[in-house]
């Protein structure tokens, strides 16, 4: 599995030669630095830790600064691990760029969705609303939340209003339409979770099979 960290830059569209337009998201990905290696002996699992986007020394915490100094780079703003089946052949300090991906490859994109605050059931779960008029006093209320004497409680997991968004979301099996190695850009078909300039992880699709 290949992982790269990046920032979502926004959406645009690409024209194929036959004139079909495809919506795509531009992600500025990498170059990422390998910050640490997790090994079977030492950590009980194998992984590489990647760092993306330099941060000023003043901003980084002391442990982060120390770790970065060992690697010989600036401290990074965004660190994530790429879990591997066996020990990696990568070395600490190695760079991962968009060249690790191929055009047409399927990827999963992980990001943090836009936070929508405390939202009602209509926005959060897509409940239907009541009638607007004719004496209705049930415009955006959730309605019944269960039975009465039995069970005398509300079942766990009942969908209700509450905090919505700002959650880790994975969008699976998106196609890479274009790669710009000069500017470290990935053009990914369709939408990707999160706001513009939000951090995203792009990795090889876990389940998807590429259409031939």
């Amino acid at each position, binding site marked *: 599995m290949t992982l790269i960290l990046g920032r979502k*830059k*926004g*959406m*645009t*569209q*690409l*024209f194929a*030669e*036959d*004139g079909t*337009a495809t919506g795509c998201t*531009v992600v*500025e990905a990498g170059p990422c630095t390998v910050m640490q290696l997790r090994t079977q002996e030492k950590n009980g699992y194998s992984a590489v830790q990647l760092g993306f986007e330099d941060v000023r020394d003043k901003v980084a915490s002391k442990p982060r600064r120390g770790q970065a100094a060992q690697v010989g780079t600036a401290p990074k703003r965004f660190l994530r691990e790429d879990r591997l089946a066996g020990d990696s052949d990568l070395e600490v300090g190695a760079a991962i760029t968009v060249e690790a991906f191929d055009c047409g490859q399927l990827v999963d994109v992980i990001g943090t969705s836009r936070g929508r605050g405390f939202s009602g059931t209509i926005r959060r779960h897509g409940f239907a609303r009541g009638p607007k008029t004719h004496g209705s006093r049930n415009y955006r209320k959730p309605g019944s939340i269960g039975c009465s004497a039995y069970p005398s409680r509300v079942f766990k997991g009942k969908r209700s209003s509450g905090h919505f968004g700002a959650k880790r979301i994975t969008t699976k099996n998106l196609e890479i339409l274009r790669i710009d190695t000069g500017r470290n*850009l990935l053009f990914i078909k369709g939408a990707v979770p999160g706001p513009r300039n939000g951090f995203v992880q792009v990795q090889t699709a876990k389940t998807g099979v590429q259409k031939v």
Partner: protein
Amino acid sequence: MDLIDGIEKELGKSENELPTLRAGCQVDVHYLIREGEKERIQIFSGMVIAVRGRGIRRSMIVRRIVQGEGVERIFPLHSPRVKDIVITRRGDVRRAKLYYLRDRTGKSTRVKEFLGDKARNVRELEKVRRADLAAAQASAAAADTADSGEED
């Protein structure tokens, strides 16, 4: 410059490939269509009633009357199928979207022509643009033949 704007500028048609369009323009759109295996250019002429979007996502709605029935088509301006857009007449309108034309028929669908010094300037600019484009295409074609000549 915004990254996306920059990318769209690179991927889309160059500035001199597209005319300055406005609602009220009477246009001939040269559109590439497929007929079985063959491709040919079809001309759709009508009035631009809306131009929307920006960058590579820019598109226009062209309206015309075919056999007494209003027909509207949306053209993405940067689509490779839109080969050329010729403005035959510019309208003098006070609105950006002429959706009100949909509710009208006959004489009331007429739009006043954009005339006067300003209109002349716009027409001159359009001529210059076309000349530039022709020159650019000619030099590109020349470069192409030169390239292929070297290969041989």
